[in-house]
């Protein structure tokens, strides 16, 4: 009897539980929570280096009225959408390849990770080199093959810079997605495949009817995580193009940074930051809503 009561107290909510999480929570409240609150407050002021005054919704009115801002927002969504899509597709292809029982797969699994391990800033430098017109390999190969008739600087033109920065972002995100898809595939019970094989299901059908449904949860969580991190991706664009040429790669986060820390317009920068937070939150809520709808459908039939 005495033992059971001891066990109950062992698993019950305790003061101890809170004491253990308190340091982490307090730290995050100071370094993330307070700044988040302060961002909201500052967005209603005209804060700058000189000082601040309350201006109400002026910053937001200006933002929503400007066609430039909506252009930047649309650009960010397009950039994010295609980048995430490519990451998922490439991650899936990579995971299928690394999951196959081929010679050398242990080494392949290690080799896939460097883009994630190396600081993004340094990866971006490498890509700048690849894209360079005069000494980059892409332009070099293009000239050799006769596709280009002269040096082509990928980062110097609007469309190619947009695609080039996106490809670099895909490169940074793909290893992580590959790794998680791979882990998902390995958790699929082997007997499912064997049963399907005995029933005469081919490779492609087994992938479509077993692998895909089984790793759907991983696909869903990876697409959310990728979307959020891509939406606020900063280093790549800032290093490679600084938002140029002529604004072609200026995403919301780059615009926010330039406004706030380039021009020291903290108020107007904060309004932009709040818009980013609202967009991400809306996206996440919408995403979870859709998810629960899908789950319901699946469980009902």
């Amino acid at each position: 009897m005495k033992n059971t009561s001891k066990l109950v107290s062992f698993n019950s909510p305790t003061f101890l539980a809170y004491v253990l999480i308190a340091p982490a929570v307090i730290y995050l409240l100071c370094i993330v929570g307070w700044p988040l609150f302060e961002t909201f407050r500052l967005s209603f002021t005209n804060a700058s280096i000189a000082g601040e005054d309350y201006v109400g919704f002026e910053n937001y009115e200006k933002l929503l009225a400007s066609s430039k801002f909506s252009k930047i927002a649309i650009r960010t969504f397009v950039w994010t959408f295609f980048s995430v899509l490519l990451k998922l597709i490439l991650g899936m292809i990579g995971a299928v390849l690394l999951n196959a029982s081929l010679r050398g797969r242990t080494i392949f699994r290690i080799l896939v990770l460097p883009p994630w391990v190396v600081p993004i800033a340094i990866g971006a430098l490498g890509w700048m080199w690849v894209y360079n017109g005069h000494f980059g390999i892409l332009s070099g190969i293009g000239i050799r093959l006769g596709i280009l008739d002269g040096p082509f600087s990928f980062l110097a033109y609007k469309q190619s810079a947009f695609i080039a920065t996106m490809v670099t972002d895909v490169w940074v995100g793909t290893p992580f997605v590959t790794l998680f898809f791979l882990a998902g595939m390995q958790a699929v019970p082997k007997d499912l495949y064997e049963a399907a094989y005995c029933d005469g299901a081919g490779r492609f059908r087994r992938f479509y009817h077993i692998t895909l449904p089984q790793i759907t949860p991983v696909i869903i969580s990876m697409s959310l995580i990728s979307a959020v991190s891509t939406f606020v991706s900063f280093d790549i664009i800032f290093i490679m193009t600084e938002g140029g040429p002529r604004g072609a790669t200026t995403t919301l986060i780059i615009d926010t940074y330039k406004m706030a820390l380039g021009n020291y317009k903290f108020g107007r920068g904060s309004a932009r930051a709040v818009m980013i937070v609202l967009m991400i939150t809306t996206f996440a809520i919408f995403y979870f809503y859709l998810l629960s709808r899908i789950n319901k459908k699946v469980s009902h039939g």
Partner: protein
Amino acid sequence: MDKYSLPLKIFMYFCIVIFFIFILLPFIEMFYASLRPLKHLFRSPYQFYSDDLSFWAYREMWNTVPLLGRYIFNSFFMAVTVTFFTLLFVVPAAYSYARFNFPFKQGSLWVLLAVNMFSGAVLLIPLFKLLRTFDLLNTYFAMIVPGIAFCIPTSIWLLKAYFEKIPVELEEAAYVDGASRIDILTKIIAPLSTPGIVVTAIYAFIQAYAQQFLFAITFNSIREYMPIVSGLTEFIGYQSVKWNEMMAASIVGVFPVLIVFVFLQKYIVEGLTAGAVKN
């Protein structure tokens, strides 16, 4: 199960080669650029091979940017410090999340995940003001303090998954036998969860190393404290850009993470995915 036919096998290896060309292309290009003499780099048309490649840039870069060694040390030092403090915050918190039930538990876990969404760049303005208020701008702390905060959430999720795998019966048995909470933590939990703590530490270290750029360019303007990622800009001179040395320095600059990675890659692949699959 059916074996791969030869054409399929060849096709798969072909795809693997294409995949890895994409993954490794910038590294190959960087390494290649670091070997070419500066005047070669600007030679048109593009040369795939030349016979005067050398490791000269790896020697000369220390003269061009005298503080280079210091920058690499800074990066390493700050990443280690961030990792240490992250673990200090995360180990007790993750244990608590794995073992106890308490009000707001699930909610606060989701909030932690949300913290990741507001990655540094969104919160830079108030962080800038906060650091200025405490007179921390242009110190190591300007990059360490926010660095820790953005390593905590994912680390808690990672480590929590590890703690949950340790059977609670072990602790209950010890508890019934009269062991104190402290004894349980230090004598049972700590030894059993070492692999999990190692994985979390590696994650925090890599993350800390990677996120230095944004904090460094925003919160620090003192050369002596610069991490390697922002120190690299010093190869861009008034007269010319020493591209080959810049590339050489980038490669040498990522050595600390690469070494950590190569020695512990087995833990990374297993550990990062262990917690994720279950959910």
